[in-house]
């Protein structure tokens, strides 16, 4: 046993050393990151300082702080980005003519309309010159954004609506694609609009448009002035009850009656007798003359076949379906009323099933394409 411990000692020491080294390295990295974060002011604070500088008309300071914030490693939220671009644009294009740098102001404004195509500048920054610059930016950048909520409850009668906004008038089309079956359904489309609410339905009354499962939602937008297109893609999970199966109601078939005429019955009997007669005639009348006829009698087995033919003809009379012709008016009217009642009941059942069908759509975080 002591020998074994001695044998294990060197690897154990190496393992302990490696563990200690790794822990030290991790601690050093964490401390370094903590120092960097502490050195970088929070984005909200910086933006607040930028606002104060803007009010004090210290435009150069605003721009310097903004550039520093943009180059910092800390990620900015969407709201922070929007505020930053607005303040920067106002600093680059203030009412004071001497401080105006319109070309530089276009960059934050372009970034701003990409984030929110329908953005309006806050009262504190807004002045006619900057507003017209914002409109110019809107007119030169084609950007589209969707604004989904995280969850929709969709029923047959209550569709969900997805807000879509563009910088310029565009044609929109919303398509859902089942990831399980690959079936694509065009849910809604519009003519040239700048902002729309596109409808998402779970059932159109005849077929199920969204079944429980994973789906892709695509918003296709085409700029009507340039023909540029863009597609925004979301993924969502639909959960809920099984889609209702709507039974198809068969078409109304007017009732008919069939009658077998006496002439038809007669023809069948005559045909049977003719063939049976021919069979007997073959066996008796068509035999060889001379010695063979003298020596042997006719084959009576032909009678079996002849009798079978007569039997088939009699069976044929009873099995004959005859010609069908439209039933009388009263029968048709009664059948029509029964059919209408069946259709009404089927429609009511379908409506009930449809009304019960609800799905919940949970939208994943947005991905743009």
């Amino acid at each position, binding site marked *: 046993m002591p020998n074994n411990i001695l044998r294990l000692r060197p690897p154990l020491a190496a393992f302990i050393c490696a563990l200690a080294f790794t822990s030290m390295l991790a601690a050093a990295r964490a401390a370094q990151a903590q120092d960097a974060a502490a050195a970088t002011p929070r984005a909200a604070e910086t933006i607040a300082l930028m606002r104060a500088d803007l009010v004090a008309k210290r435009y150069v300071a605003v721009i310097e702080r903004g550039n520093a914030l943009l180059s910092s490693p800390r990620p900015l939220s969407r709201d922070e980005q929007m505020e930053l671009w607005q303040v920067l644009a106002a600093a680059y294009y203030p009412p004071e003519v001497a401080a105006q740098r319109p070309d530089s102001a276009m960059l934050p404004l372009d970034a701003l309309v990409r984030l929110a195509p329908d953005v309006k500048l806050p009262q504190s920054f807004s002045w006619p010159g900057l507003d017209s610059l914002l409109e110019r930016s809107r007119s030169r950048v084609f950007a589209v954004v969707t604004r989904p909520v995280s969850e929709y409850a969709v029923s047959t009668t209550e569709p969900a609506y997805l807000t879509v906004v563009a910088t310029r008038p565009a044609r929109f089309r919303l398509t859902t694609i089942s990831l399980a079956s690959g079936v694509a359904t065009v849910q809604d489309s519009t003519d040239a609009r700048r902002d729309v609410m596109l409808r998402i339905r779970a059932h159109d009354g005849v077929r199920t448009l969204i079944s429980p499962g994973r789906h892709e939602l695509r918003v296709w937008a085409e700029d009507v002035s340039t023909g540029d297109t863009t597609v925004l893609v979301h993924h969502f999970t639909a959960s809920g009850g099984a889609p209702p199966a709507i039974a198809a109601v068969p078409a109304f078939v007017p009732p008919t009656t069939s009658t077998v005429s006496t002439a038809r019955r007669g023809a069948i009997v*005559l045909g*049977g007798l003719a*063939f049976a007669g021919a069979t007997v*005639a073959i*066996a008796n009348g068509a035999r060889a*003359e001379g*010695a063979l006829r003298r020596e042997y009698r006719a*084959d009576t*087995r032909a009678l079996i076949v002849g009798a079978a033919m007569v039997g088939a003809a009699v069976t044929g009379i009873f*099995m004959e379906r005859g010609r069908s012709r439209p039933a009388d008016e009263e029968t048709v009217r009664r059948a029509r009323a029964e059919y209408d009642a069946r259709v009404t009941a089927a429609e009511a059942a379908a409506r009930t099933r449809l009304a019960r069908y609800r799905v919940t759509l949970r939208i994943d975080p947005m991905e743009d394409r």
Partner: protein
Amino acid sequence: MTALRSSMPPAAVLLAVALLGAGASTTSLRAQTMEPRGPVLAVLAHQARVRSALGDLVPPERSVPQLGLEVSAPTFWRPLRVTGRLLRSTRGADDLHSLDAGVLLSVRFISLEAAYASRRSYSPESGLAHGRTAEFARAGFRARAGVGSSGFIMHLRGNAYVPTQRAAVAEDEIEGWDAESGLTYVPRSLPVTATLGYRLERFRIFGVEQEVSALTFALGVALLGR
């Protein structure tokens, strides 16, 4: 031979009967229902009675069971079908057998038939097969008629035989004939057929007059349905 000719059935009479029967029964049937669309393959069983005579010498009647196949297949032209029938005695290869192969031209419920036929006859002295085969050209008609909508079909056939071996026969041009009638059941939902029929065949081979009378049973399958 004169006797043979004088008793020649009455092919015209049979044809008239067939036309009458078929015409009466098929007034409401379409032409397409008369012949199946696809090939038809049937297994045949004949219970034949063979009677032969050489002058006044008449050996005892022989009863010969036969088994065989019958085939009918469509061609590129709808009214034209090829047909074939092979029947062999179950008592050995040297016994009664027959082979037919030909074409069938159908117009509604009537068909015209032209075929090659080979037959083996019996010796009236020994009552056994001659061991020689005679070949004929055969021409005739077939008529079919459906029995209303019951699934039954009645049919009638009549054929005249012309020898292809002129040296072996006497001066007569027509050496024999056959007639056959039958009742076939074709179920509406199944592509099978079942037939009960009667056949009489008589001809002269090598001076021997022979009469074969048979009750026939057949089970078939219509490969593409009716």
